[in-house]
C-alpha cells in the first residue's frame, strides 16, 4: 500500500508539470489551431532567466514574477511578429516557424548559459535551482505510511489552484468569453466587436507564462536546469493534451496527472519492462492509442469536416 501511494504521489507531482505544459499547449491550440512546437523551449528560456535572477541574489518570489513576465512577453511577441504574418500562408509555415523557434531558443540558451548542468559549483553561486516550497528533508507530510515531500505536494496544489482559476477566467469572465469566442469563430468574434488580434496575443502570452511556471517548478523539483530539461516534458505534455482533448483545458490537466501517475506506476511495478529507457515509449503508446480509439481525446470535441 505504501509503495502504491508513493508511486501515486510521485506520479501526481511530475504529472502536475506535464499538466502545466499541456495546459499551455491547449490554450494555444484552442485559440488558433496551431501546435506550438516551441512551448517547451519558451518555458526553458524563462527558467534560465529565473536561475540567473537567483545568481544575482534576487529572492525566488520576485524572480518567479520576472520569469513569468518574460515568458508572457516571449509568447506574445512570437504571436505578433512570427505567427500572425505567417499564419496567412499556411499552417505548415507556422509549424516550421515554431520549429525554428524551438531550435533557436535552445541554441540561445546554450550560447548564453552553456551546455552544462546548472547550478554548477564551478560557475554558480547557488547550490540548487531555487524552489518555491520548503525543501529541507524534514518537510514532508505522511499519508497512510507514505511520505509526500512538501515540494512535490506543493506543485500539485499549485496546479490545482491554477486550473481552478483558469476555469473561472474562461467561463465566468468577459475576457474568457472573448477567448472562447475567438477560438470558436474568429470572424464572428470580430463582428461582435472583439479585438481578435489582442485576444490571440494574450492567449499566446498566457500559454507561454504557464509554460514558464511549469519550467520553474520542474527545475525546482530537479534542483537543476539544463538544455534538455523541457523537451521530454513537451512530449509528455503533448501526450497529455492528446489524451485529454486538444481543445479542453480541464482535459489537459487531467491528462497530465494521469500520464504522470501511469508512467510512475509502470516504471515502479515493471522495472524490467519499462524502466528508464522505455518511459518515453509509454508516451508513444498513449498518443497512438488515443488517436486510434478516440482522436478527440477524453474531453475534446470531435470536428466534423465539410467537403
Amino acid at each position, binding site marked *: 500500500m505504501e509503495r502504491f501511494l508513493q508511486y501515486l504521489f510521485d506520479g501526481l507531482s511530475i504529472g502536475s508539470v506535464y499538466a502545466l505544459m499541456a495546459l499551455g499547449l491547449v490554450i494555444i491550440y484552442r485559440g488558433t489551431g496551431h501546435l506550438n512546437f516551441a512551448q517547451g523551449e519558451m518555458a526553458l528560456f524563462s527558467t534560465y532567466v529565473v536561475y540567473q535572477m537567483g545568481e544575482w541574489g534576487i529572492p525566488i518570489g520576485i524572480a518567479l514574477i520576472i520569469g513569468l513576465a518574460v515568458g508572457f512577453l516571449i509568447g506574445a511577441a512570437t504571436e505578433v511578429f512570427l505567427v500572425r504574418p505567417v499564419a496567412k500562408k499556411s499552417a505548415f509555415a507556422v509549424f516550421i516557424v515554431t520549429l525554428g523557434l524551438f531550435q533557436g531558443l535552445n541554441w540561445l540558451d546554450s550560447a548564453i548559459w552553456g551546455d552544462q548542468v546548472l547550478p554548477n559549483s564551478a560557475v554558480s553561486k547557488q547550490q540548487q535551482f531555487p524552489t518555491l516550497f520548503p525543501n529541507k528533508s524534514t518537510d514532508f507530510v505522511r499519508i497512510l505510511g507514505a511520505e509526500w515531500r512538501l515540494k512535490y505536494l506543493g506543485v500539485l496544489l499549485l496546479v490545482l489552484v491554477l486550473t481552478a482559476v483558469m476555469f473561472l477566467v474562461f467561463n465566468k469572465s468577459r475576457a474568457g468569453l472573448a477567448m*472562447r469566442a475567438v477560438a*470558436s*469563430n474568429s*470572424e*464572428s468574434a*470580430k*463582428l*461582435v466587436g472583439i479585438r481578435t488580434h489582442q485576444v490571440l496575443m494574450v492567449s499566446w502570452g498566457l500559454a507561454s507564462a504557464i509554460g514558464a511556471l511549469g519550467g520553474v517548478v520542474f527545475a525546482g523539483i530537479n534542483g537543476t536546469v539544463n538544455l534538455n530539461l523541457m523537451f521530454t516534458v513537451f512530449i509528455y505534455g503533448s501526450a497529455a493534451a492528446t489524451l485529454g482533448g486538444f481543445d479542453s483545458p480541464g482535459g489537459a490537466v487531467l491528462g497530465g496527472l494521469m500520464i504522470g501517475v501511469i508512467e510512475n506506476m509502470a516504471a515502479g511495478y515493471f522495472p524490467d519492462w519499462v524502466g528508464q529507457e522505455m518511459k518515453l515509449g509509454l508516451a508513444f503508446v498513449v498518443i497512438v492509442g488515443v488517436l486510434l480509439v478516440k482522436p478527440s481525446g477524453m474531453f475534446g*470535441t470531435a470536428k466534423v469536416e465539410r467537403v
Partner: protein
Amino acid sequence: MTLLETHDLTAGYGPITVLHGLELQVDEGEIVVILGANGAGKTTTMRAISGVIPRHGSVTFEGRSIGRASPDSIVRHGLAQVPQGRGTFPELSVEDNMKCGAYVRRDGSAAIAADVKRWFGTFPRLAERRNQRAGSLSGGEQQMLAIARALMSRPKLLLCDEPSLGLAPLITQELFAVLEHLNRDEGLSVLLVEQNANLAMHMASRVYLLETGRVVATGTGEELSADDTIRKAYLGF
C-alpha cells in the same frame, strides 16, 4: 436623417475587385434591401461596411467616417451585422452567444441580463435551449440566435446578410415579421441583403439592385416591380 452613406465604395479580395464605386444610403427608420444575383457583390458590400475586409472610398455612419475603422470600433458606433450563414459560435451555449453580442457594452451586467431576458421573450425557442451548444441548433434557430446576438449590442443599424438562406419559408416569414416589428415599433434601421426578392421587397422602404459590384437601379419596391424590364431581368417574375 441619413444613418449610413457610402460613396465610391470599392472593395475586393486580393487582386479581384468586386465592388466598383458603390453608392448607397440608409436613412433612420428605413428598411433598405439590396437585391442581386449571385456574385453581384452583396455580401462583399456588407463585409466592406462592417470593416472585415479592406476597402476604399468613403463610408460614413451618423456623419462620422468609418471607412478606415476596425470592425470592433464600427460595432461600438452602433452597427451590428448578422453574417451570411449565421456565424454563431458553435461551441458556446446559446446564452453565451448572446452575451458575446453585448461584448462592446459598458452598461453593466444587470442591463445585459435584462436584454438577454427580453430577446428570449421575442424568440422563445432560444429560451428553451439557452444552455445548449449553439452548433446543435437547427438552421432557423441559429438564424434567430444570430439576429438576437446582433441586437444585444443595441445597434442603430442592423446589417443582415441573406437571412433566408437555407431556411424553410415559414421560418423566414417569422424572421421577417420580427424585423418589421422592430423597425416599426423600436425604430431599428435595417440594411438587408436578400436573394429572395419577393419576400424582401414587401417590407422594403427602398431597394437597391446590384450587378457586378455596381448599383444598376434603385427605388421603392412598387417602382421596381412596376418596371417590366427590371422585373423580368432581375426579379424573375
